[in-house]
């Protein structure tokens, strides 16, 4: 299986662990990820709120860059995924916009036929395309005894949700059940992480983060698994601030789901970029998976 790969900016810097672990896992699962040559910014959330055409044109450039022999593009970052998928859908649904975007692309010698590339989120590729049978065959180290809280956030499941339930997604839950973990069915798994509220109104953002952490603790999760750099950043990096704000003592490791999946697939922890998270996940992993040899602290 070969897909075009759009890492996006987060995966180059603060969420490098997501990129590293994604590539490592893909490798084991036999997914070839061909990084787009000369990709550009996905526009995050801001472009779209400024000017639709400009935003679409900037994003569509990436779609236009997908090699002719590939028809699927995977973007692990939730924001990148949504922007790319949304732009394609807008161009398909609104012929006129599609034409205008292509006029913009023409300035750079590019062209994109709406609908040509299917934009995928990474979880769905692993869950649907690789599937239970293949994944189970590849397990080297079952995650037995580890209690994980899958956290989906918003952008992967809403508003575009092809394969999961947008209100109560389950794909990551099932995936980690296959991998042997105990998955906690906590009710806030698709709630908001606060997003950019950290920059606008800290108290509100902290409250939203607290709710997520609180629920995971309530359900006795050992760690929260993310599929979005923003979610991971908010829950991990602001955990200390949340603790001081609310006088709480959260010490919940927040990692990318691909990192833990990598462990289950027997990938060396070093190759999964553990240790970059602020609340270190390694002690928990070592304790729960009985594994000094599994995870070096």
């Amino acid at each position: 299986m070969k897909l075009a790969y759009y890492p996006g900016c987060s995966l180059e810097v603060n969420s490098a662990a997501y990129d590293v672990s994604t590539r490592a896992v893909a490798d084991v699962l036999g997914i070839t990820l061909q990084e787009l040559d000369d990709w550009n910014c996905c526009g995050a959330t801001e472009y779209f709120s400024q000017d639709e055409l400009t935003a679409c044109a900037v994003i569509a450039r990436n779609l236009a860059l997908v090699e002719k022999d590939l028809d699927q593009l995977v973007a692990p970052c939730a924001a990148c995924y949504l922007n790319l998928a949304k732009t394609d859908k807008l161009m398909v649904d609104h012929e006129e916009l599609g034409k205008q975007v292509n006029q913009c692309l023409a300035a750079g010698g590019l062209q994109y036929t709406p609908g040509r590339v299917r934009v995928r989120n990474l979880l769905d590729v692993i869950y649907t395309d690789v599937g239970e049978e293949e994944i189970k065959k590849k397990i080297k180290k079952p995650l037995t005894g580890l209690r994980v809280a899958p956290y989906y956030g918003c952008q992967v499941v809403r508003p575009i949700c092809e394969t999961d339930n947008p209100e109560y997604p389950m794909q990551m839950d099932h995936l980690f059940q296959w991998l042997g973990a105990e998955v906690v069915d906590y009710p806030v798994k698709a709630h908001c992480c606060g997003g950019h509220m950290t920059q606008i109104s800290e108290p509100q953002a902290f409250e939203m983060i607290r709710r997520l952490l609180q629920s995971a603790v309530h359900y006795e999760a050992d760690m929260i698994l993310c599929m979005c750099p923003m979610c991971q950043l908010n829950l991990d990096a602001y955990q200390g601030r949340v603790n001081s704000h609310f006088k709480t003592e959260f010490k919940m490791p927040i990692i990318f789901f691909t990192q833990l999946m990598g462990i289950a697939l027997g990938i060396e922890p070093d190759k999964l970029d553990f240790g970059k998270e602020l609340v270190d996940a390694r002690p928990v992993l070592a304790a729960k998976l009985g594994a000094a040899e599994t995870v070096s602290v």
Partner: protein
Amino acid sequence: MAERVGIYVCHCGSNIAGMVDVEEVAKWAGVAIPDVVVARDYKFMCSSLGQQMIEEDIKKEKLTRVVVAACSPHLHEKTFRRACQNAGLNPFLCQMTNLREHCSWVSTDRLAATAKAKALVYAAAERVKRQQPLEPMPVKVNPTTLVVGGGIAGIQATLELADAGYKVYLVERSPSIGGHMAQFDKTFPTLDCSACILTPKMSEVGQHENVTLLTYSELEEVSGSVGNFQVKIRKKARHVDYDKCTGCGICIEKCPRKVIDHEFEAGLGYRKAIYTPFPQAVPRIPVIDTESCIWFTRGKCQACSKLCPTQAIDYDQQDETIEIEVGNIIVSTGWNLFDCTKLPQYGYGRLANVYTNMEFERLCNAAGPTNGKILMRDGKTEPDSVAIIHCVGSRDSRHNEGCSAVCCMAALKFGHLVLEKTKAKVYSFYIDMRPNQKAYEEFYQRLLEEGMIFVRGKVAEVTDAARQPSEEGKLIVQAEDTLLGKQQRYPVDMVILMGAMEPQADAKELGLKCGISCSMAGWYTERHPKLDPVATMTDGLFVAGVCQGPKDIPASVAQGAAAAARVMGMITKGTVMIEPIVASIDEEECSGCRICNNLCPFNAIEYDEEKGVSRVVTALCKGCGTCVAACPAGAITGAHFNNQQIMAEIRGALWDAAPEAKEEPAAV
């Protein structure tokens, strides 16, 4: 011999004459169209004088065909056919062409409209010459009726017919009749006890001399047509001899195997492996659930057999298929509850104290698992607060677009019962309140006074994730109160989901067996939504109750009675006339390619293996003509719409179009 055609062009006052030069059309038709012997125009053809004129012409001019160029045939075809019949001409030798709706009223140019009118008249004249006399076919009606489905609608229909003195077979899939109504506690808005009003009717059915009750049975196959259906019914093995069993109940009492009752008790209570669904079941003959029975699963026990005083237990009993003959069929197969786990945000199946409406019916039923006490899942605690969520799976484009019609009232009923039986606060989360029948609005007002709290807004989620200490241990209902314009959180102890009514899972399959179509939503389609609400497109097949669309008990009863009345009408008449516009297959020409076999939605085409030819069952044919158009050998003829007739009509309609390429005279 050439036909003698009469053409009658109507002015319709100025409705046609105002835009079409009708005198000119008539004059032209008399000259230009071959075989026309009379062509007249008249102020109002449909008036008695107009009709009289046609009748006289038929006699005097010995007309063999008549064309009336006037209004839509949907308006006056019958009128002119009758006129022809009065004059001794077969009514099917009269053809109408529509100069009013299709020409004068829609045109703006008198010249163009007149030219169009000429073409329409020419087409009708060419067609009518090839029309053939047809006679409706009488079919005797078997006075026995089959009712499929023993809920309240089916029970009502059965009793109406049986009381009128006609034999009825009532087929019910589950071990007892009664349907959903038997599970209810109270009925809105009068709060009558459901069992008190239903069980007398049930036992009446059970004891009625004119009723043959076939419970625990499935409809397998329907063949034949109006007046004479042959029906195969499979009686599933009860493993209890129907004739020997007295219904004493000892077997049930002594059966050591207890299983969760997912049907009648909606999963809240238990039953035995040998059981009747509920104590007042009709018939009172139990069935053995072979998947749970210790004898069937492990080969031990036989307690029931040993203790039965009449040796009625028969482990070796097999399914039995019987064939019956009936004249009419009433389908009243009811509904299914929406699977509330499809809306995981409401937590059903995950959060213990989230209930469905059917569960709650059992919960507050005096004969239910808690003896009518409203208790939480622990079986001990009374809730302090209850939230009722409306429109769960209905009015939702992702599930069922339609409204389930009964949930608003059922929610009010639940509210009343909770308020009556407990001290709990009751919230109703609704999109719109729709109490739209007699005394329903009053019931709503009553609940407002009783203190039920109404929040207008669709619930976003039901969660146990507490944000404040006050929410700990509660179910929090998060909803926007659209009247306040505010997101609100309501911590409650119990949530009731008003799950949507859905068509039975196999409704389409059963519909196919009988020849009833389903709407997009899956409900059976009536013949006409306003004027023929219980008949279907298949003659002799009627629908009643919720299988035709969500409705409450009074409406179901009314439909049951209405369907019975329609059937009685058929029985009283004794014979039905079948429209002669049907297809027929020339067996000499048919080569049995079987192209047509799959094309008829009414199963009117059967294949004779022995002769290798297909055949149209005339009584089932509706005359659509699809098979006629599809027959590759041209072996199927559609009466009154045959190829010669339509081709002639085309030729006539294009009489003034480009003439065929002129053939030069032969040179040799």
